């Protein structure tokens, strides 16, 4: 177990290093941040001063080594635009994105799994066919369009929910959370539904396919023949066995939801990290982009680790394989 963990960490470090190099070169190729940061009426002297102060006049390898050097000391630099440490900036924004992503994942599971189960168990019923067709819509409708539609319906026409922004927050463990207040939930609901739409469809389809696959297998028939109640068979024998692909996909989806909730965040003016990264890329705010990607990669690695551990809990075969 320990060896496996160490191997995992070494892999992660390699990924982080490679990623930092690629992103650094990529950001450098896009353009010079000085041109974007300066006021339009800045003179050439101002420009030269700024370039020198940000160290942009140094050779590329030196800039990279400087970055790596201070990163190893735990300093990811200060944002060019906001003049605050990049990590602080990201940690300020991350909770908003985290609660949005988790809310979306929870919706995906509590809506997607029952519907998928139903569609898998009774494939011939009209409702199952409706669910199946509905999930195609979830896949194919563009997020921004659905987002605007949600706003037009629930905020503008009906006036039930606010159109944008994050609600009141409560401070817990030094972090501001909005899911603990009623007002916060009212703001959270629409963007979370918007973000979860694709995932709901995914979960429905995965669950349905899994159920269809497992249903005709011998152990299910045997369990039924043994006289177990249908409900117990579904919960214990079927659901548990289709959890593995579900957990894998949800793990990956969670990562990408946190990292790339950009579209939803920008339509709902949600002050999360997706919007931050978009603004920072547009402004070529290098320290923020670098720090953000490092945080995200670390997050992905961590989620994958959790997924692997969940495998062991869910599937005895994986447990034995690892201990053997």
């Amino acid at each position, binding site marked *: 177990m320990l060896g496996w963990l160490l191997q995992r960490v070494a892999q992660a470090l390699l990924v982080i290093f490679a990623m930092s190099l690629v992103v650094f070169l990529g950001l450098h190729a*896009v353009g010079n941040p000085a*041109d*974007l940061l*300066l*006021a339009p009426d800045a003179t050439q*002297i101002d420009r030269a001063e700024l370039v020198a102060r940000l160290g942009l006049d140094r050779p590329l390898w030196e800039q990279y080594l400087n970055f790596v050097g201070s990163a190893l000391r735990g300093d990811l630099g200060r944002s060019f635009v*906001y003049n*605050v440490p990049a990590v602080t900036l990201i940690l300020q924004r991350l909770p908003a994105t985290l609660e949005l992503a988790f809310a979306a994942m929870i919706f995906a599971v509590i809506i997607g799994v029952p519907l998928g189960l139903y569609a898998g168990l009774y494939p011939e019923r009209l409702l199952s066919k409706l669910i199946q067709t509905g999930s195609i819509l979830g896949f194919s409708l563009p997020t921004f369009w659905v987002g605007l539609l949600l706003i037009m319906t629930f905020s*503008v026409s009906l006036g039930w929910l*606010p159109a944008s922004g994050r609600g009141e927050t409560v401070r817990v463990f030094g972090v501001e959370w909005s899911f603990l207040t009623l007002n916060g939930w009212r703001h959270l609901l629409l963007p979370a539904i918007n973000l979860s739409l694709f995932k709901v469809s995914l979960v429905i389809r995965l669950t349905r396919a899994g159920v269809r696959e497992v249903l005709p297998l011998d152990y299910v028939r045997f369990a039924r023949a043994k006289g177990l109640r249908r409900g117990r068979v579904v919960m214990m024998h079927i659901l548990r066995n289709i959890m593995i692909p579900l957990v894998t996909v949800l793990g990956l989806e969670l990562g990408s939801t946190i990292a790339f909730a950009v579209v939803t965040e920008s339509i709902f003016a949600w002050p999360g990290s997706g919007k931050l990264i978009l603004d920072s890329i547009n402004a070529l705010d290098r320290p923020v982009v670098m720090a953000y990607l490092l945080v995200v990669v670390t997050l992905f690695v961590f989620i994958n680790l959790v997924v692997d551990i969940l495998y062991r809990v869910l599937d005895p075969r994986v447990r034995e394989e690892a201990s053997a």
Partner: protein
Amino acid sequence: MTTKLSTIALSAALIAAAGAASAEDLRIGFADPVSAIDPQLNNHAGDHSVSQHFWSRLVAQKTEGGVVPDIAASWKNLTPNTWEFKLRENAVWSDGKPVTAEDIAFSYERAQAVPGSVASFKGFLRNVAKVEIKDPHTLVITSHAPDPLLPINISSVYIVSKHVGQNAATDDYNSGKAMVTEGPYGFVSYTPGDRIEMKRNERFWGPKPEWEKVNYRYIANPAARTAALLSGDVDVIDKVSFSDIEKLEKNPKVKVWSYPGLRALIMQPSFNPNPSKFLTDKAGKPLDKNPLLDVRVRKALNMAINREAIADRVARGGVTVATQWMPAGSFGYDPDRSKIDVDPNKAKALLTEAGYPNGFKLTMHVPGERYPLAPETAQAIAQFWTRIGVETQVEVVPFSVYSGAANKNEYAMSMIGWGNGTGEGTYAMTAILATANPAKGLGASNWGRYSNPKLDEALAKASAEFDDAKREAIIKDAVKVVMDDVGIMPLYHYKNIWASRPDLKVVPWHSDRTVAMQVSKAK
């Protein structure tokens, strides 16, 4: 059963209460990003809009052009190089201490050396040689060279307090620790990238500010801004999307406030003598000589553009036609150059005369998201030019790439949105028309590297002329010089457009800044 019903009723009431705000509160949804609450960190548009709530300046600019008193009640020119400013006796900081000349001197010093600043304010103070304190409410500013525009320049620099500011860094302003202010509104809280909350400053020296509390929210996406207004999340939005104007004007629940603005969209032809891959013959071979160096070609291109059609069809009335860099009615606008005739036949004849009877191929570049409508406008212009034989392709580039390349004069035809923030003509002359001269700080945004000695001379003369009438005459002459030479091709001026609840009134403040002070209850 009854208890259940009343619970539902109560929670419904609570939800309703959470949505509604008091009549004394104002919620604004704005478009420009804000980098900090520190008013001296960055000279960025969003930062300016925020700072005007909290901070006063020595003198201020209002609406289009002209300088009005702010902390200084009056000022006069002692000699061409020295200015005396008299401060208001009744101006106090929010902690009760009086605003004195010490604060001004400190502010001008700090503004030139804020650590971490990327768009410094020191350009506005470049000509300030020294600030002398005569008594607590009188100060004398000496300039390096005679400078009639000194008051306009310092009107962009906000005054912070010395007693708190001397030990404060940007972080202290952001956290509110150093927010001892003297403007119409006081600081409550700042959530970066999301919102700024303010309250009325009861100690403000001027007329009592209209709103008890102001919630100033950053909503970058134009569709989201419109939705926030329609759903009642905010009371006022700025920079209304051009595609929403028509719809909003018909909506009885919304009022649209549109005013002519200063910001101009301008094309800069490249005067680069070297062959460019963006200027080729019809077969795609780069031309030996840059055709844009010939004034006849520039004239032909300029008269091929139907600006009225662009303003009407592309911008749907959100802009006014530009024939020079400043809009009609502003200081230095030349009525003699108020029209550019649209004449494709004459344009073709000019091209033939210049040696391009079959035209040539040109690629123009435009940033994707920086200037509203710029890509659509470029497409329209490409069609006008293709019609006279100059086959034009439009390349839309992200601004992060565009700014670097345009700055190096790599493009054959670039576009710049110029704010004309000072409200008079020499600002654009200094930055986008003067011959590029890094040592003197001239032509910093002259991306096409246009150079005309007559213009340079006019700029030098105007910069030292204290008589307004004479200075305006010089600027008008400069307009003639540049427009007859087609050194740039101005296209249009953006209107400044706000939308609000119907019971509010929005008046223009200064250029396209968005502030609570411009909103009042409609009587």
